[in-house]
């Protein structure tokens, strides 16, 4: 296989940048599980929905995805809030598989609705001004990936700030830490759960806007993203925020390297192998849950 050090470096950096966007998507899943203990099996479908929304805004009214982040992020916030408040709330006390099945049904509904509305063809967003790579010595930086990674980092930083410095954020962490205690001191747990779900959904919305700049989307992209998000979150630690980012980067890099050394179609095999190993030897993930 012909490769040299600069190819390797380029692949690593490209993987790192994609990985940060993956990380943002997984962050949403991790936050939802960490607090509300809901295993969101419709996560990838929500991602696909956001990608379609961004593609639609671009193709109809020429809003580029960096701006579309705001309306889509907000729309997903309300969507997540309503979903938790109206649909999932009674399911908190039911067995886990029943919750899982409900979200699965939602996933089927989203996927088929996308298929009905947009048809089976792939959609993409290509911005002309992003095509020229930035050249730093031997490293070629893909502009789309770079800015997507920057947005992902900024959103993640904002989330950390929210969870550690705002009243609501601290209250949400209290619910995750000790639900009974949180209820006793009078926190409105239902509302906090809904806000958490909204934040998680909003993360996916923003990640979707960024992802549409990197790959195209079809109605059936959803399940693959759900699996990807779970792989990342398991590797990082279910419920752990920094774990999701680290896991995202790790998977981004491992996919890039797998594509280089083995075959692009076999790249996710490495991710699944990593996940199986982490589950067996470190079931709580590399950076165990601490929200």
């Amino acid at each position, binding site marked *: 296989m012909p490769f040299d050090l600069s190819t390797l470096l380029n692949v690593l950096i490209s993987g790192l940048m994609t990985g940060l966007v993956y990380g943002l998507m997984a962050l949403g899943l991790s936050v939802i599980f960490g607090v509300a203990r809901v295993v969101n099996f419709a996560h990838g479908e929500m991602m696909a929905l956001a990608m379609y929304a961004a593609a639609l805004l671009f193709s109809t009214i020429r809003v580029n995805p960096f701006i579309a982040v705001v309306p889509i992020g907000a729309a997903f916030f309300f969507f997540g809030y309503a979903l938790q408040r109206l649909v999932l709330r009674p399911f908190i006390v039911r067995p886990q598989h029943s919750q899982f099945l409900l979200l699965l*049904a939602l996933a089927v509904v989203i996927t*088929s609705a996308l298929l009905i509305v947009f048809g089976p063809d792939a959609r993409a967003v290509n911005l002309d001004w992003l095509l020229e790579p930035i050249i730093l010595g031997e490293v070629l930086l893909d502009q789309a990936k770079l800015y997507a990674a920057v947005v992902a980092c900024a959103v993640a930083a904002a989330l950390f700030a929210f969870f550690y410095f705002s009243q609501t954020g601290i209250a949400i962490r209290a619910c995750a830490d000790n639900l009974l205690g949180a209820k006793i001191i009078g926190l409105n747990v239902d509302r906090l759960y809904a806000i958490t779900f909204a934040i998680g959904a909003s993360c996916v919305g923003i990640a979707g806007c960024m992802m549409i700049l990197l790959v195209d989307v079809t109605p059936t992209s959803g399940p693959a993203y759900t699996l990807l998000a779970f792989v990342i979150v398991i590797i990082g630690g279910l419920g752990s925020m920094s774990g999701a980012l680290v896991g995202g980067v790790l998977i981004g890099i491992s996919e890039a390297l797998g594509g280089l050394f083995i075959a692009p179609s076999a790249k996710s095999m490495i991710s699944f192998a990593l996940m199986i190993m982490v589950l067996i030897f470190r*079931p709580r993930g590399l950076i165990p849950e601490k929200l």
Partner: protein
Amino acid sequence: MNRRATVLLLGLFGLLVALPFWASPYVVSVATLFLLFAYTGQAWNIMMGFAGLLSLGHALFLGVGAYTAAALYYHFNIGPWLGLWVALALCSSLAAALAGLAFRYRVSGVYFALLTIGCAEFARIGFDHFMWVGGSGGLFLKVVERERMDLLNLRGPPAMFYYVILFLAGAALVLSKLLLRSRAGYYWQAIRESEDAAAALGVNTFRWKMLAVTISGAMTGLAGMFSAFYYSNLFPEQLFHISRSIEIILGPIIGGIGTLFGPIIGAALLTLLADGATELVAAVGWDVPGVKQLLYGIMLFLIVAFLPHGVWPALARKLKLPQ
């Protein structure tokens, strides 16, 4: 079981046995699908319903069973009834290895479920690149004349497949009933309700959980062999895909987890639902791809939201039958 229930069950069984004699080929093919889901649902129910171990990756056993039997037939001309034992051995050792590894390292709950998905997906991508059995291009078994019945090689008319799967589904029901009333069954139920309490009473939870996974995996492998010979073509994207795992678990969840008849009722409902959705779409004339799945998703949503324990317990109460 009371007398009413016995009569009803025998009547239903008689109806199914007589089905190919009066029903159209289409109905027989739908019924075959129903029985296949009833069978795999019962296999999965042994793990989740009896022992409380949630597997979301049963496609793994389906795929391995299918590919083993098909590859032996394709490459070495070894018939399915011989290849079956190899498939069973492979699936049960795979299940035992997976369970052993998981329980040895105390992987449980959601984590165990995700481990099963991970293994199935790993196998799917692996088989995509496993050229000896055709890779992602698929493996095709010779299709011979549909009229000649060759039970030895499991080649023949659809009705033959119908009776094979009817027998398997019936056998699975008997096995489930025996298991549920055996020592293992009581231990499993104890583990399902509270693993710590069971362990404290001296139940070797590791061993009994292993047994549940092994039996369930081997049974699902048998379904794999059946579908390999029924459909005559195998693709990793279909056999190992997560949607296959989900299809397997939908029946028992809708019918009622942990009950004997739940998986069967659930499979019947699902087949009717899918079929009904097709008919409805055709009748309304709104034949856009995706509409059928949308209806399916909405119906699933409603069933899960309003009948959380499944259809069978509610139905059994209505019909005054023992659960």
